[in-house]
């Protein structure tokens, strides 16, 4: 056998190995599932489908077997300054009432029309991951994609048998106000603002937000940019992985997958999209969601907020 053939064989083997490995990774923990996948796996054991859309939508029609999971996924905290994660024991009770067990494969879906809809699924996904439940995925394009694919729709409310889910808070998933204050003084932490560009710049704000602007040094990556919602009437499908990779670089996220990242938005909803894309799709390992987000930060005058500029720019 000449060396050329040996090399070719080695190359061939390497290609098979790489392809096999990536396929295995995809099958192992797929965080974004397609309509076809869900249609095939609807009756699979341990699959629990949760409809996190508005409760009025559920009554009109939902994916057969899906449980109405309106929440609350977020509640006002004691000081009324943030719209935050409820108490762990309340969440555990809620998830059990939806029929979630520790071995459940939870599939989340929403209305799927706007990026804001998808953010609801992302928030639920983050909540489950923050409680230690990694076997969770989002239906790409939500109910809008399901209907567009002409899959069957049911009007029958589903009454699940209670689950036995047990979970506790994984602290590394959540950034508190105090942690954020500390992180703002440490140059190594990357803040990602997932709101609209106008809000980041300090030109506009929601009426319930006390101050204009962004946390100093933030990278701007609006959650709205992460889906194809509205483009030629498309449901809110996540953008292609290649586009998301390109955007991560283009907004200034470091290439190092171990980088410490904190996402935030107005009230922790768009920030969950940032978390989902960075952590679950792009594979960043240290991503936290600032639960109180700007709602909490703007009310605290000791937190610096920058206006009249984009948060992050390279030195020219």
């Amino acid at each position, binding site marked *: 056998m000449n060396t050329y053939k040996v090399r070719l064989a080695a190359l061939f083997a390497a290609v098979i190995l790489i392809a096999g490995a990536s396929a295995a990774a995809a099958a192992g923990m797929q965080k974004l599932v397609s309509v076809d996948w869900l249609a095939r796996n609807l009756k699979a054991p341990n699959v629990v489908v949760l409809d996190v859309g508005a409760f009025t939508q559920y009554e009109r029609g939902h994916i057969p077997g899906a449980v109405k999971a309106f929440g609350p996924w977020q509640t006002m905290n004691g000081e009324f300054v943030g719209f935050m994660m409820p108490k762990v024991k309340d969440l555990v009770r809620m998830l059990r009432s939806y029929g979630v067990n520790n071995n459940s494969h939870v599939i989340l879906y929403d209305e799927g029309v706007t990026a804001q809809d998808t953010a609801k699924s992302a928030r639920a996904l983050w909540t489950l991951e923050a409680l230690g439940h990694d076997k969770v995925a989002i239906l790409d394009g939500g109910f809008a994609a399901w209907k567009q694919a002409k899959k069957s729709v049911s009007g029958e409310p589903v009454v699940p048998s209670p689950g036995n889910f047990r979970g506790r808070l994984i602290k590394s998933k959540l950034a508190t106000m105090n942690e954020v204050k500390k992180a703002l003084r440490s140059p190594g932490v990357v803040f990602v603002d997932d709101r609209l560009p106008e809000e980041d710049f300090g*030109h506009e704000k929601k009426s319930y937000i006390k101050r204009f602007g962004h946390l100093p040094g933030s990278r701007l990556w609006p959650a709205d940019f992460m889906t194809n919602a509205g483009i030629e009437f498309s449901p809110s499908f996540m953008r292609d992985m290649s586009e998301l990779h390109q955007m991560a670089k283009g907004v200034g996220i470091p290439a190092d997958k171990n980088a410490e990242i904190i996402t935030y938005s107005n009230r922790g909803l768009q920030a969950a999209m940032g978390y989902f894309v960075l952590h679950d799709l792009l594979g960043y390992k240290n991503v936290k969601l600032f639960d109180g987000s700007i709602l909490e930060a703007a009310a605290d005058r000791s937190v610096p907020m920058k206006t*009249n500029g*984009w948060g992050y720019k390279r030195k020219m």
Partner: protein
Amino acid sequence: MTGPAREDKGFFMQTRQTRRNFMKRNLIQSIIIALLVAATGLVSAPVTAKAGTAPLVSTEWLAGNLGAPGMVIIDVRTAANYDFGHLPGAVSMPYSGWEPYNRKTRCQMMPSVADLTATLRSLGVNRSSHVIVYDAGNTALDATQGGAAVWILESMGQGNVSYLDGGFTKWTFEGRPIDKIKPAPKAGDFTAKLDPSKVATLKDIIANLKTKEAIFLDDRRAVEHFGIEKRPDVVRYGHIPGSLNFPADFMTNAGINRGPATIRSKKELEAMAEGVGLPMDKNRKIIVYCNSAQQAGMGYFVLRDIMGYRNVQAYDGSMLEYAQDKKLPLVRFAWGFVTE
């Protein structure tokens, strides 16, 4: 430099004033303004305007100077709006006439020297005229029409131009008079002459892609800059590599407390210039662009006439022209201020 505009005390207060108070105050203000203008003239000569005129004038100032000899007020709103009511003595040149469709470049471009000369002469503009431009003044986009008209006038050799802060909206909010009388001006002697130092062509853009002598400044909305959205008639997404993004929408107070589209304070604009990454060196060359040069014209006006950047060009063809040539680079899914 913007003395008259600085006096802005909020229009709701003013509407409550009696007519007499109003006139008395106007007189006092006129004197103060005259002194201020004279002082600024002595301390630092305005970049564009000839001595005695500020690039930005307030409604109060204009109300006190209506009918001044040599003044031509141009309304850039639609003809229908003009017919319904306009500032006393104003002539009409709707915005569509400032950036008409150009068959050669297949996009909106400023009129030819001959066309603009003829139009402005028919409106009574002389070489010595002080031209006041006003727009609807309601939205940020309205303000860009007036801003672009100022850029075109200055690019075509009319040095003495002012922009009415807040436009027609602020004027009417304050209860100031409007009428339907169409003036019949005597033909003027204005002669347009293109000043290439104020207008960038596609050639300039291509050259600058290599030399990087000038800073590209994108005045479109952030979603367009990032390449998420585009105007349907712009054929490709994205921005010119290395562009900074300073949306024209951010340059006015439009919509804040339902206020008219007045230009933001110089202090805020300076902060924004720094915040979008522009250099503090006012001699650096800057090429401003957008979709059709409308927002870019506004950028030119704000950067050059209000903030004092000396070397500003607006790219007339802008993205409507640039995107047509598929060989020219466009960057998508990135902020220019991050990647360059």
